[in-house]
């Protein structure tokens, strides 16, 4: 079955190049955890909260929290914020399902919030997540951690922690796979399949990108 599926995938898409292996993903998360410990060391009393952006930002936030606990001693609280209801491109596609919004116990007022997502591209998802965040409380400061930054920003947003910078062209796709949501850990790059009937494939048009797709861009 698995072979069949891979064969099908290969038939549909040009072959994908693996940017990060499973080991690379683990190592990258560990590195970001160290950076978070370092960068937030000045304000331990304030507390750090990791807020994932669903779908894949949420397990990433959980893994980062575990790594921070392992290396730094104290486990930061973890939550998630679904930015869908705040997106500026809702009207461009059929209504999409909503994802979990979980505010950690104690909230995040006056805490340092680190937003976590898998891929940063246009910045629109992060913008929506910031709006959602501010409706749930008033953090002391907000930082951003992403596994991959692929460029093509459309808003003045930059990540504080970047696992890997990947210069891409717009017709390439980045797919992040995580064991929590997929069959393995990996980051893949591939050229988009030729767009059928004028439909822009996810990842090509940032406005059409979804945070709920299979680890594509955001």
């Amino acid at each position, binding site marked *: 079955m698995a072979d069949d599926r891979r064969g099908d995938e290969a038939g549909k898409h040009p072959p994908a190049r693996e940017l990060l292996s499973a080991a690379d993903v683990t190592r990258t998360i560990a590195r970001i955890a160290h950076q978070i410990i370092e960068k937030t060391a000045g304000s331990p009393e304030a507390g750090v909260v990791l807020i994932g952006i669903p779908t894949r930002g949420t397990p990433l936030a959980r893994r980062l929290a575990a790594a921070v606990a392992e290396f730094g001693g104290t486990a930061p609280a973890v939550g998630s914020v*679904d930015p869908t*209801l705040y997106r500026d491109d*809702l009207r461009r596609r*059929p*209504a999409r399902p*909503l994802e979990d*919004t979980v505010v950690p116990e104690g909230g995040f007022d006056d805490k340092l919030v680190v937003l976590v997502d898998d891929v940063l591209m246009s910045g629109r998802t992060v913008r929506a997540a910031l709006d959602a965040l501010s409706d749930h409380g008033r953090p002391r400061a907000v930082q951003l951690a992403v596994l991959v930054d692929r460029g093509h920003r459309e808003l003045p947003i930059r990540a504080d922690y970047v696992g890997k910078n990947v210069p891409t062209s717009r017709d390439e796709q980045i797919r992040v796979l995580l064991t929590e949501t997929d069959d393995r850990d990996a980051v893949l790059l591939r050229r988009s399949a030729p767009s059928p009937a004028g439909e822009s494939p996810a990842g090509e048009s940032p406005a059409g990108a979804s945070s709920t797709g299979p680890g594509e861009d955001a």
Partner: protein
Amino acid sequence: MKHLLSVTDLDAAAATGLLDTSDRLKQALLGREVRKLPTLRGRTVITLFYEDSTRTRVSFEVAGKWMSADTVNVSAKGSSVSKGESLRDTGLTLSAMGADCVIVRHPASGAAHRLAAWSDQDRDATGTHTSVVNAGDGTHEHPTQALLDAATLRDRLGSVAGRRIGIVGDVLHSRVARSNVFLLATLGAEVVLVAPPTLLPVGVEQWPCRVGPELDAELPTLDAVMMLRVQAERMHGSFFPSAREYAVGYGLSQERAALLPEHAVVLHPGPMMRGMEIAPAVADSPGAAILAQVRNGVHVRMAVLYHLLAGAPE
């Protein structure tokens, strides 16, 4: 989803999707001081009510407002409706004024279907696009009521599928019963109707449910019981001899409620006739989910508006 006219517009996946969205909306608003989402900013939602209903109208209005839609209420009193304007003209007028969604409550069964048909014709002719939500049409359906009941059952029981749910009372004239029977069956529940024979519809044996002859025999096996309102005019229409006899046969007294299993949920679509179909002590007991139904009503209606209005038009 273009309109929501009947629960049969929804298959199990679509209904579950709506309930999931409702849960997520509830979650997104949980514990917030600012209960306002920007999602439907600039969208216009009009409630068009030809029957009085504070509960349903306010619920839709709050749902719209919490998602930043502009909500406008039109009632049959004090508008051109009372001057005899046809439903068609009223509907098309509201569309022309830019209504993205018309939520209609009407005493005629099928009124929402008609409004949706006219809206679709109008869209073909002019390109305007107005979704129609059925907020109760005659004795036909009240789909958002059934959705909020299902949401409440999911909250209390963990799931709807495989649960046994009793619906008791005036099934014949109840749009709530019709929507619930078909939605709960779609979601995999087992539905049992208990009612005087005069208040059971002809052909009910072809509905996806069972008719139980006696309430006391059913209660011990039910996961939830939904008490339907008995309207005053039925009492004078010879459907049953007297209010007293009805209450004895079909009312949920304290003694009867004690026959229910510990975990069982008591639902009522409201407004309640305390002492008639439900004893006050039962309505206020921990097993009763009547106010939870009201709370879920707002989230379910937000979910409906979200699915109809947030995405690209179909």
